[in-house]
């Protein structure tokens, strides 16, 4: 479904991705693990068109999308839940959802998807008239996911959805991710919480300072001594 071939990205002169090749197949949960600065967020930003690669190629459903602007890539069915949630603080919860469906013209469909979002996250229904900026971190994360779902993407890019959340909320968010995957969404998940990520993922990649150092099924990675040492706390 999605392939990155020899992706090379840089911020100014500093290389952030060095010839990274990864792929995501339809129906999978694939996780991208690594320390801070390993290039996980850069990978997601390249896929969604926020950052242009210097070299390499991005293919989505057999189409080369590397040159497309971000606003076009969303329309192809790739939803990006960015690092730090990035909800719109001065729009209400409902307006945030509405703007998530910016490319959807059918009002009835928008309404249905809002109802679905409220079923998935009932707290957002309670808060629907509140400004996004007044929500707690967990609620903001739910809103960010719900907002991305408003365009009904086939592929969902999730950037550290567990960051800064209480353990019970982390469990909840991971349950949601698994549910979304069962409902047919393909997921590329960036995480610091390697243990949780590998528990729900089918496959994983490990990045280190911009390079791909390991790839394999979630089982293989969990069993790998180096991974245990570096990312699973021994």
């Amino acid at each position: 479904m999605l392939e990155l071939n020899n992706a090379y990205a840089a911020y100014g002169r500093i290389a952030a991705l060095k010839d990274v090749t990864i792929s995501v197949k339809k129906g999978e949960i694939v996780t991208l693990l690594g320390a801070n600065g390993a290039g996980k967020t850069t990978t997601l930003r390249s896929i969604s068109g926020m950052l242009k690669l210097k070299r390499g190629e991005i293919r989505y459903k057999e189409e080369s999308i590397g040159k497309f602007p971000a606003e076009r890539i969303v329309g192809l069915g790739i939803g990006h839940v960015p690092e730090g949630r990035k909800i719109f603080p001065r729009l209400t919860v409902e307006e945030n959802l509405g703007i998530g469906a910016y490319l959807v013209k059918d009002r009835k469909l928008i309404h249905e998807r809002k109802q679905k979002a409220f079923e998935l996250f009932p707290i957002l229904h309670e808060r629907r008239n509140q400004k996004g900026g007044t929500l707690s971190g967990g609620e903001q994360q739910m809103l960010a996911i719900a907002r991305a779902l408003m365009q009904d993407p086939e592929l969902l890019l999730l950037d550290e959805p567990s960051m800064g959340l209480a353990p019970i909320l982390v469990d909840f968010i991971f349950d949601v991710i698994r549910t979304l995957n069962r409902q047919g969404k393909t997921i590329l998940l960036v995480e610091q919480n390697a243990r949780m990520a590998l528990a729900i993922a089918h496959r994983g990649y490990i990045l280190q300072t911009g390079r791909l150092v390991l790839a394999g099924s979630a089982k293989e990675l969990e069993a790998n001594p180096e991974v245990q040492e570096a990312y699973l706390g021994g």
Partner: protein
Amino acid sequence: MLDSLLSLLPQILFEGLLLGFVYAMIALGYTMVYGVLELINFAHSEIFMIGAVAGVEIFRSLSNIIHNGYLLLLVAIVVGGLVSGLVAIAMERFAYRPLRRRGTTNRLVPLITAVGVSFVLQDLVRLIEALWHNEFFLRMASVSDLEGSVTVLGIFIQYKSIVVIVVSLAMLAGLNLLVNKTRLGTAIRTVAQDMDTARLMGINPDRVVSSTFFIGGSLGGVAGVLFALQYTTISPYSGFLPGIKAFTAAVLGGIGNIPGAMVGGLVLGELETLAGTYLPTLTNGTIGTEYKDIIAFLVLILLLLFRPQGLLGQIVKEKV
């Protein structure tokens, strides 16, 4: 003396309201553009001037064809708004967007560009008018059915003043609806809050920026037509003073804040009119009416010293 001062008050407040609405409409253009691009578009005063000139030209060329003054005014308002809106779009497209594309992060660069655009537009209008009419000081043709007046509660009200108020209120209400209730309005607010994340929603920021310039520009253009109607004499340089005062109004309300621009415009209009009337009387003529212009800038200086975020603005805090 107090009695005579007080008896003038209703009339002065009314005049201040008229001026205030004009300032408010111009201020909206500054504040909306600042909202999405964090750019003070100093050439916006020329957008206002172009609207005024377009209004004068419509009156000049059509007053023999359209005899109903209100219809003529409606045509002038529509044309003035459209012309100013389109010039604003062109200005963004050719002067500001190339700078944005190049990723210029120094905020002085677009600011100086704006000043340059301002000069270009002034002299372009001057050139066109000089070639066309052999002069560039223009007078709004008077149309008899707009010239009538009534006196209500001791306030002398010209019919055209009523038009100014009705049109301003309609434009401000329309803008509120547009910004808060429509898809485009939500997109504008979204881009103003976070342009990068807006793109992840499928919003094309360039298109939203163009629309913002068009909306702000046409409000300024309509304000120009109303200004020409009310104050009758216009030149290519007429934009400067109202423009910079409207900018003050935008800062007064809190730059980037739409209701703030409306409040700021009205407050400034009232202050200036009150000062223009009362300063000469209170100082026995030492300070004449001509000093009313410094009120706006006095307000600006005091505001920057004591409440830089403006009346309705909030201090922007970075939230982690």
